[in-house]
């Protein structure tokens, strides 16, 4: 069996370039085809097959990266487009994108089936006619290909272009339900993100200016290898890139689009948005931070990252407390987790590289849990037809399957040990206590407890009864299969990480 895997890995590492190319082009191609397909059911099958193949190829690539030299393996540039690279963080984020997309397409497949049957009207009572399914499936696949491109790009310009592409492809997806509120959310999402991304473009140009002396090329391997940088320009470029990708990632003052987009988009899309898209934006910041550390302004970038991380956690705590819609609460918890990730990155660039594993763990854990929660939220929205949490009650008796998922998600989100989010939280408190900044440590404890209390208020009042009438809702168990799988994977992550850390 081992021999069999080794041979596949060897074979695939040789074909790394071709495989990576196929991986990005194939979903885009399928998306275009699905425009012209006649029947909806065919389109949905295309979506499923597309995501399955994508997952298969990702596994192949991952094995090749493992084979070619462990997780932080050597640079591999593809023949056709030498801007493709396959080091550690790309592999992890690629894996997240493809696994999440599989779950989303499975959920989407059934969701669209149910959509046709139930005619839902919007809060204001307009009959809700959905976007033609063709548009939805096509843009979903295009969205997938743009995210894969992000994970592969080794050239800062290409990275920028692919992140911009993800914004553009995801905008129509948010507008799937065609209600006034989702239109407004799409418009805000488009304007805020494209302005942010434009600033990131400016940052990329500053970056090339900074490395002007050594040929100004924007390839990652050149940027990381060249030594003399123009200090002022590299700082300016870091700031612009940080603000640009920060808007896309949802850091504190720039996060305004996130709650609107996530609460108005259909749950399939918001799962992908908060699970995969935020990670791609984080990848952008990760790369800029890596360049900044190589250029010797590590503490400059880490102070910015930590400051923004703390601000983000503060803002998310403040907004979760008075939240009245459960989908927006989930969006703010994504904002909070992004704050945690940027805090971790800030600590990482202070030199201790053991933290990279923690960042991967947080990214993986958060994406799995958050997307599973959005799937469940979608089903709850379908059963109870309201977004307000106080109008949903007595889920424990009326829809026990969804209630158990919902509460399990709450436990995992809160960072209680079976959830992988425990270790990053443990580390942040440890690092801030050890590095002597007691004030920020106690502030963190206060904020985390506020967030926990805010979540408890929302989830508990939904699951347990408020004198609601008790007719049982016919539950769809199959559609929520990915949620259970993702929750199981997340807690498996916890035990795996715990077991591996024993060695250290």
């Amino acid at each position: 069996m081992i021999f069999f895997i080794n041979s596949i890995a060897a074979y695939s590492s040789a074909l790394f370039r071709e495989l990576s190319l196929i991986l990005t082009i194939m979903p885009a191609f399928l998306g275009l085809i699905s425009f012209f397909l006649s029947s909806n059911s065919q389109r949905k099958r295309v979506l499923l097959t597309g995501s399955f193949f994508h997952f298969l190829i990702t596994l192949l690539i991952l094995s090749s990266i493992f084979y070619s030299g462990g997780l932080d393996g050597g640079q591999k540039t593809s023949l056709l487009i030498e801007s493709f690279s396959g080091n550690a963080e790309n592999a992890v984020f690629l894996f997240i994108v493809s696994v999440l997309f599989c779950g989303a397409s499975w959920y989407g497949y059934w969701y669209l089936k149910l959509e046709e049957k139930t005619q839902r009207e919007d809060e204001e009572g307009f009959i809700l006619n959905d976007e033609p399914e063709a548009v939805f499936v096509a843009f979903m696949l295009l969205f997938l290909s743009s995210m894969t491109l992000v994970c592969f790009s080794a050239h800062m310009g290409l990275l920028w272009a692919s992140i911009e592409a993800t914004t553009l492809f995801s905008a129509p997806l948010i507008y799937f339900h065609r209600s006034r509120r989702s239109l407004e959310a799409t418009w805000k999402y488009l304007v805020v993100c494209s302005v942010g991304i434009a600033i990131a473009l400016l940052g990329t140009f500053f970056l090339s200016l900074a490395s002007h002396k050594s040929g100004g090329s924007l390839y990652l391997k050149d940027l990381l290898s060249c030594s003399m940088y123009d200090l002022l320009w590299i700082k300016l470029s870091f700031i612009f890139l940080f603000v640009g990708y920060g808007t896309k990632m949802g850091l504190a003052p720039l996060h305004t689009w996130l709650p609107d987009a996530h609460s108005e988009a259909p749950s399939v899309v918001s799962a992908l948005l908060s699970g995969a898209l935020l990670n791609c934006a984080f990848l952008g910041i990760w790369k800029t931070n890596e360049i900044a550390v190589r250029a010797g302004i590590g503490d400059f970038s880490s102070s910015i990252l930590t400051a923004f991380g703390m601000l983000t956690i503060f803002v998310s705590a403040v907004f979760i407390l008075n939240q009245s819609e459960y989908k927006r609460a989930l969006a703010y918890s994504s904002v909070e987790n992004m704050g945690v990730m940027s805090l971790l990155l800030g600590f990482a660039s202070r030199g201790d590289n053991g933290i990279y594993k923690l960042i991967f763990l947080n990214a993986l854990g958060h994406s799995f849990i958050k997307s599973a929660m959005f799937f469940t939220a979608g089903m709850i929205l379908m059963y109870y037809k309201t977004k307000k949490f106080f109008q949903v009650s007595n889920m424990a008796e009326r829809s026990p399957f969804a209630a158990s998922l919902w509460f399990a998600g709450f436990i995992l989100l809160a960072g209680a040990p079976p959830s992988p989010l425990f270790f990053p939280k443990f580390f942040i408190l440890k690092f801030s206590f050890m590095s002597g900044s007691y004030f920020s440590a106690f502030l963190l404890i206060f904020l985390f407890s506020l967030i926990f209390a805010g979540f408890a208020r929302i989830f508990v009042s939904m699951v347990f009864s408020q004198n609601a009438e008790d007719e049982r809702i016919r539950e769809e168990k199959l559609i929520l299969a990915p949620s259970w799988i993702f929750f199981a994977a997340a807690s498996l992550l916890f035990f795996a990480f715990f077991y591996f850390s024993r060695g250290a």
Partner: protein
Amino acid sequence: MEIISQFIVLAVIFCNFFLLYSYSPSELVKFTAIQGVLTAALPLLSSSEFEYQASAFAICVIFLKGFFFPLVLNRIIKKNVQYSNGKPHYSGAISALLYLSVFFLSVWLSARLAFETKALAWIIPASFMTIFSGLLLIILRSQTVSQIAGYMVLENGIYCFGSAVFVNQPLMVEAAILLDIFVAVFVMGMAVFHIEREFDDIDSEKLSELKEV
């Protein structure tokens, strides 16, 4: 060659003045188109030797910015006629003041960031000015179409800065960046079309339902 590109840069700076001053979305779109064409023409003229690849690029950019987008946006503006000559958001004096402040800000910024590239004399302040006026347009104007125009002005600025500062980038990346900008404008156009159909006017004040209670 040099003098012409110098004039183009000055023209770009003045375009910003007209942009900040004009109040009707149709005029905004017109001046953005002019500015787009001018900035696209810059690399053609400034670079001495003639490259086949760069010039082909510039031509298609000119085509898109000069003709295709004004066409789309004007079609939207024509549909709801009553907004074509709406009262400007603020009086002329303020727009002049804004223009001057943006001008001095960009000149101070470019002087402070010591440049030693051999680029044209005034191109860096011009690009900064365009960027800032693009941002101002988005922030101060309330019509959705003017926000798109603001975004395009922002892109013109960045493009102008990019073309001035560094020359050769791999073709694929250049193409990807330009493609993204145009797809962005195209998708925004589609969004405005839906907004216009849904809210039957393109004022973004209506779009403020999603807020924290």
